[in-house]
């Protein structure tokens, strides 16, 4: 059979730039980045509070996450459920996230309701009640979440992978939300102390985007300028890796029909001159459907529903990781084959693979950033990483210019397959036997949770 029509040629993409914000500063030191996005009827407002997670007290880890989760459970002005009723009456949905560098909290709201919603967001951020009963409830919910996490293969292998890659001295070796022991110890006072120390206007950036109504600057100022706090200095500390040689760990999950596989190591960050080459190489290897890993292990072997690899940058350093779920019988074969595919020294990336990866990474940008929420979220990620918003256009320009040699050499310099940690969560008896047969004698571990 032949095609009815020949494959059409594809023209050139329209040049695209990440939208540039208008930057201002409120009298109390809050930086404001405003993205005017006509036609975006749903506005997004994020407040990023710079607060390195490594400054959580070691025996109170999880306090940043609990502070965020309790913040909309009542404020000094609108106690109890009153604040969420007021937010929801405006159609505002409040959510947030804690990462290694700080806390992001914000709302999505129909743009025409921003004027009414902004004071409520300011109230949640500046004056949360953090009432004892809400703190207790959220501690119980976090403990339950830990139970549910470790009951899954993916959750258990993520925990183990952190511990394999990062030194116990580093906060990154433990989950952002904390482990059972430190979470169970938290009190209301811990959250009050944390909020006072780290949710501070002079460490905060408001990022707002959407079809913004007239007067939005005044609304922001009126809502947030009365927020005051004690000043404190803090610094971000790069994470440390484990000094030991490669760890090959098996987390036992009896009766599992699949093994959850993680392969990876401590890696680098966006400021590294190799960063662009690494992102391109990771995309060609495991960032798209046509990547080497997915093509071989899914489309040729049928070993998995999907396999991917990526670099996850922190402000300094970061991780490289590969993940997949495979049926137990083939999990170790898949591991060995994936490791071989990560060895680019003998099989450098071909020009067409690199061209596809560049087109994928750069071309997908306008599709990814087509809503106020996506633009605000990306800008917030850059603020969290300590970078200016212009960084993203420079990154795309550098990506477009990346050569096959540059991508291969960067990857070979940073990723040494023989040193990568390996974590498999599944039926330990089969996995230990198969790994040992392949010369990867594992240790069976129970990750701290």
């Amino acid at each position, binding site marked *: *059979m032949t*095609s*009815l*029509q*020949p*494959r059409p040629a*594809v023209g050139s*993409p*329209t040049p*695209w730039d990440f939208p540039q914000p208008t930057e201002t500063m409120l009298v109390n030191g809050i930086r404001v980045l405003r993205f005017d996005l*006509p036609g*975006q009827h*749903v506005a997004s407002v994020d407040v990023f509070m710079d607060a390195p997670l490594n400054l959580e007290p070691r025996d109170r880890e999880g306090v940043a996450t609990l502070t965020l989760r309790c913040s*909309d459970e009542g404020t000094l002005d609108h106690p109890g459920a009153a604040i*969420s*009723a007021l937010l*929801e*009456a405006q*159609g*505002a*949905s409040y*959510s947030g996230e804690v990462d290694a560098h700080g806390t992001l909290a914000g709302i*999505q709201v*129909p743009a*025409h*309701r921003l004027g009414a919603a902004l004071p409520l967001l300011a109230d949640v951020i500046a004056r949360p009640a953090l009432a004892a009963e809400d703190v207790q409830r959220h501690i*119980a919910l976090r403990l*339950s*979440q830990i139970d*549910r*996490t470790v*009951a*899954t*293969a*993916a959750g258990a292998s993520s925990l183990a992978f952190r511990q394999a890659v990062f030194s116990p001295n580093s906060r990154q070796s433990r*989950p952002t939300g904390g482990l059972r022991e430190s979470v169970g110890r938290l009190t209301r006072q811990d959250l009050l102390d944390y909020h006072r120390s780290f949710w501070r206007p002079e460490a905060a950036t408001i990022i707002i985007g959407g079809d913004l109504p007239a007067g939005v600057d005044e609304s922001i100022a009126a809502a947030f300028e009365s927020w005051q706090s004690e000043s404190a200095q803090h610094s971000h500390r790069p994470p440390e890796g484990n000094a030991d040689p490669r760890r090959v760990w098996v987390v036992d*999950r*009896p*009766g599992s*029909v*699949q093994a959850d596989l993680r392969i990876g190591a401590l890696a680098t960050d966006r400021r590294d001159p190799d960063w662009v080459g690494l992102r391109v190489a990771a995309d060609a290897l495991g960032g*798209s*459907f*046509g990547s080497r890993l997915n093509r071989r292990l*899914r489309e040729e072997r*049928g*070993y998995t*529903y999907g396999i991917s690899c990526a670099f996850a940058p922190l402000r300094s350093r970061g991780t490289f990781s590969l*993940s997949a779920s*495979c049926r137990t019988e083939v999990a170790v074969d898949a591991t060995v084959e994936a490791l071989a595919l990560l060895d680019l020294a003998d099989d450098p990336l071909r020009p067409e693979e690199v061209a*596809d990866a560049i*087109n*994928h990474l750069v*071309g*997908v940008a*306008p*599709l990814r950033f*087509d*809503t106020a*929420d996506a633009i605000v979220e990306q800008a917030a990620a850059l603020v969290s990483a300590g970078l200016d918003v212009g960084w993203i256009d420079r990154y795309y320009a550098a990506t477009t210019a990346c050569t096959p040699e540059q991508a291969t050499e960067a990857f070979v310099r940073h990723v040494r397959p023989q040193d990568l940690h390996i974590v498999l969560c599944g039926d330990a008896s089969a996995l230990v036997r198969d790994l040992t047969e392949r010369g990867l004698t594992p240790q069976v571990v129970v990750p701290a949770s």
Partner: protein
Amino acid sequence: MAVVLDYPIIERTTSNGLRVILSPDASAPSVAVNLWYRVGSADESDGAKGFAHLFEHLMFQGSAGLAPSEHLALIQAVGGTANATTSFDRTNYFNTVPPHALDLALWAEADRLGSLMVDQLNLDTQREVVKEEKRQRYDNVPYGDQLELLLELNFPDGHPYALPTIGLVADLEAASLTHVRDFHAAWYRPTGVTLVIAGKMDTDTVMSRVERYFGGISASASPVGVPVVAEPLPPHHNVPRASVLRHVPRASLQLCWRTPPVTHPDHPAVVIALAVLGAGQSSRLHLDLVRTDRAEVVGGQDFGLSRGNSLGLIASRPCEDVALTELEARICEAIEQLASTGPSEAELARVAANTEREWLALLAQVEHRADALNEFATLFGDPHGVNTWLARLQSVTAADVAKICATWLNPDARAVLEYHPDPAALPLDPAELDGDPLDEDPADPDVALVTDEESA
């Protein structure tokens, strides 16, 4: 001053009977190409359970102009995204591409509609991939058999919705190349699909391009497949109950109802009633169960099914030491109360405001806008529903909600699924195991609701 939706909608048909809906948007950075084939797992015959979804995987395995697995790689390599999902009522294929690659997406979709080419090796490999998908999403995760149990509880044997879309492994094993050819011939026809193009496009030339790529596909003499019809089922009586012991970390409770199909005039009021009860931190059930330390989470949803009935659900997970019977009684009481007094104006306003945000946020992305247009075109017969849906939801009155709670969501008409943790037992059956989100640290605990879609 709520937003008035006015997405342009242009309806056309090609010379060979392909229904086309265009929704141009000059401000969009991309263009979405979305196809809904009118065949889903509900249309599978006995012995072929799971085939519609396996077939969807095979649609990526090559055609006259495309090598196996080339379609997705090709779209990604021009900076686009593509995928497909299968559910009970339809199979959809979607591509979002930069405007300069619109022709490529149209050509690729037309090529596999006109000339799918699958060999035994591709079939065998994708069968393994689908079995891995089943293990990853169902067999190896906690509560992984929830959808299967819910369907069994609500739909009798032989009903089009009696089994999950993922199907039965034995039936997948039996699938042959003959089945693949017959299925393509029966369902994958210009007259069996609706094509939506939404986003940035040249409106003067777009139809001639659709005609160029799709117009030559022969409209075969035999009639296109007709979706299986199901008669409405009566409401439950005597509270059918499935109580299972599983290797799960917590108990869970699902109250479910045979609700009206998505096209029924009562469907919007069902959606609003479930939102008054369970959507958001100021919903009745959140205040009564979660804020009072009885439940960790509660939420409601309707599956939006179209044949005879849909399925409505209120799901909750108790706090430690709280009995499921207490949760169940309080949920029933909340529904009875809503039936007798109806929601307050403030509750309706809250639900309206949140519905507005959710709907506008969904439509802000051309990919989802195209899918919504296709859902309205395919299930409701009219794509303009995208512009009027919000107004329909917001026109639901307090009296409508009260009536829904006394009828479709009447507690006496519920069925109940209970999970109880079995800490003593190692899982006996692989299908009774665990797993969950890939992210070990979701930002906020949320209710784990079930999905009825399978992706490629």
